[in-house]
């Protein structure tokens, strides 16, 4: 009975302030859409980092004829140095496996991954031989690199992560922009909820005065107002989730299905099980905060 009454009052409020309610729904939708986009980009960054870091090998390039003098003061690596390095790597507990890549193999690998125009004039002695090391825990990359950087006969241990860093930086900036817009829009939607409640409180002051006088509880008087904001935000959140789903389903997933595209991208399941519920929850919580705040100011109980 009382629930029916509260829901009825709420529906009346939404109908009476129809245009304001629509505004709340739309602004909430846009803000949550940006918020959700930020979350998805962030998730994608996480996936990429995981995948790429797992593939990371430590490449230890050895000194050869073409090496720079300041890196290799002793000239080309000696057989003794190479054997010592191999033994050291094989006994290192952080190392899972060690592959040796000779100059000839390096040339072959390079030819496989590059266009002929570049590789045609290349000869094996122009490329360095190297140890390719797979780590037990890829997170220990930095320590391992540092340890072998200064070993005798080693020319360089380049940080492969540095190659990926610009990509991650771009994605981080994109995330921040999306989240910044989301914060701004969320602020707008909170102010709209607050204004709507102020209007509703004014247009229904006669009802609330009577409710107060006959002894209705504070919760019962305020609940319809709060629910109005919550329902509007809920609709906005569901619409935003729908828009994210569409964006992922018709945009990102098509990219994923292209032949040769092996990196996992965010998919609709991520939207439905993770991002969607999060943005709807955030929208509802913000609406409740905005309503309670403005009720304190505009509705005497």
């Amino acid at each position, binding site marked *: *009975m009382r629930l029916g*009454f509260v829901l009825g009052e709420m529906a009346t409020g939404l109908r009476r302030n129809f245009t304001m309610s629509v505004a709340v729904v739309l602004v909430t939708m846009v803000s949550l859409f940006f918020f959700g986009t930020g979350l998805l980009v962030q998730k994608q960054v996480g996936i990429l980092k995981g995948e790429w870091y797992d593939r990371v090998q430590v490449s230890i390039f050895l000194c050869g004829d073409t090496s720079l003098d300041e890196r290799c003061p002793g000239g080309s690596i000696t057989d003794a140095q190479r054997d010592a390095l191999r033994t050291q790597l094989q006994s290192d507990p952080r190392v899972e496996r060690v592959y040796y890549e000779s100059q000839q193999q390096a040339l072959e690998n390079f030819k496989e991954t590059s266009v002929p125009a570049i590789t045609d004039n290349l000869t094996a002695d122009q490329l360095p031989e190297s140890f390719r090391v797979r780590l037990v825990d890829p997170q220990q990359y930095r320590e391992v690199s540092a340890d072998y950087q200064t070993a005798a006969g080693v020319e360089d241990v380049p940080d492969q992560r540095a190659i990926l860093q610009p990509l991650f930086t771009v994605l981080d900036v994109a995330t921040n922009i999306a989240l910044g817009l989301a914060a701004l829009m969320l602020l707008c939607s909170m102010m709209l909820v607050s204004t709507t409640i102020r209007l509703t409180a004014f247009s229904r002051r006669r009802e609330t*005065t009577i409710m107060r*006088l*006959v*002894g209705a509880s504070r919760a*019962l008087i305020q609940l319809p107002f709060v629910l109005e904001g919550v329902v509007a935000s809920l609709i906005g959140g569901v619409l935003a989730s729908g828009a994210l789903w569409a964006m992922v389903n018709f945009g990102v997933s098509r990219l994923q299905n292209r032949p040769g595209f092996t990196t996992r991208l965010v998919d609709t399941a991520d939207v439905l099980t993770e991002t969607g519920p999060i943005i709807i929850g955030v929208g509802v919580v913000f609406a409740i905060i905005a309503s309670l705040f403005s009720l304190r100011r505009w509705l005497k109980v």
Partner: protein
Amino acid sequence: MITFEHVSKVYGEGHRPALAEVTLQIDKGDFVFLVGPSGSGKSTFLRLVLKEERSSSGSVQVNGRDVGRLRSWKVPQLRRQIGVVFQDFRLLADKSVYENVAFALQVLGKPRHVIAQTVPETLGLVGLTGKEKRRPHELSGGEQQRVAIARAFVNRPAILLADEPTGNLDPETSVGIMKLLDRINRTGTTILMATHDDDIVDQMRKRVVELRDGRVVRDEDRGVYGSGR
């Protein structure tokens, strides 16, 4: 039922008190007229009973509760024991007569069958049987005030406060409203009515409490509106 002990109310620093050292006892079943010119403190008195305002000093007791010390979340319970009627009726224009009265019970969460029984009963008591489906604007002033009284009384409060209930009505209609209030009083409900209407006070011959500048200047049983008139 209502006890004021040395109650003062000052609305703002440096202002003349709206009520000054008012001590008054109203017993269960009393019918009391609160008279006095505008600004004499009648409305403030009623607002203190309802805890719409806090007294600046002194104690206000209503139905055995110390109103001044009442926690804010318990105020609704106090108000459920008090019905209020106003000069301007304060009916909801988009609800029918029946819905206006039922509203008071709905917001208290009364079960449907209780509402279905109590509302027609109360409408019968105030003489509005047959007009349940009308809207307030389709009724005369007197009928609208009867709806308001029905709404105030439907929950069978121990106290009925009336703030100038006949202020907008012609003398003949006012008499009808007073008869209705008298009938409600006979059911054991305490009635406190603030009024300017000297004819009515003189006719009814009930207890009269006169306020002037926030002080009780007269309190007599079976009194008239003003000795000086």
